[in-house]
């Protein structure tokens, strides 16, 4: 597990091989000044376009991925004046029904939390140096996220 924290301890970035505990992210971003906490969990689905998926395997260029996630977090925190932000990505095998990624953000008001949460997710999918291999019963396939709409 590699993780980094911002100096002011309001940003937590983590890449782990363990099961993700979203409650940790939620409690990390919780603040007496924050009226809204929004979280997103990406989980392994049992099918893709009707084709049965057995599991997902993730890998990452960890040192670069951690830095990229941290840059995304710092940008989001400033842009929406968030109180706290946590991004956790899981590597290795992620069985069906389990989470590969968890984002938690907190802000004074709900609008910032919604907007930041969604923006962070799209940035992570577009930029973080992480790869997902979809394993079927009869084969597997490296996926590629759609590029961000420019």
């Amino acid at each position: 597990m590699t993780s980094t924290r911002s100096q002011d301890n309001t940003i937590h970035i983590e890449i782990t091989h363990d099961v993700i505990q979203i409650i940790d992210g939620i409690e990390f971003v919780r603040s007496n000044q924050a009226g809204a906490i929004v979280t997103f969990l990406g989980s392994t689905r049992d099918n893709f376009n009707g084709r049965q998926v057995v599991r997902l395997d993730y890998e990452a260029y960890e040192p670069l991925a951690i830095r990229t996630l941290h840059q995304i977090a710092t940008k989001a925190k400033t842009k929406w004046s968030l109180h706290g932000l946590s991004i956790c990505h899981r590597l290795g095998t992620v069985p069906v029904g389990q989470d590969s990624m968890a984002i938690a953000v907190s802000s004074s008001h709900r609008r910032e939390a919604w907007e930041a949460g969604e923006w962070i997710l799209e940035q992570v999918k577009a930029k973080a140096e992480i790869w997902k291999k979809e394993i079927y019963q009869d084969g597997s396939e490296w996926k590629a996220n759609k590029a961000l709409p420019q």
Partner: protein
Amino acid sequence: MYPSNLESSKEKTFKALYFAAAKDATQMTCENIPMPNTTLTMANLSEFLAQRHPALKRRQILEGCLFTVNEEYVDPETIIKHGDEVAIIPPVSGG
């Protein structure tokens, strides 16, 4: 720092990291590559790797890749030198 393979310690090499489809094509996660005699820049790195691993070319993997040198996305003119860590970054699919 000892070069991780058996080539003589005087020989100049750079490290290449392969991920996802590039890893499958080369059948390796990383390798120490002897520096070629001609100057190797980011611009001609693809061609260099394609010759070294024909599967990369056959599966048209490098077209979609980005490249980093020592964990930085650099300009095409950047020259690869001894001890550099070059990473081949296929289209990402995190989240």
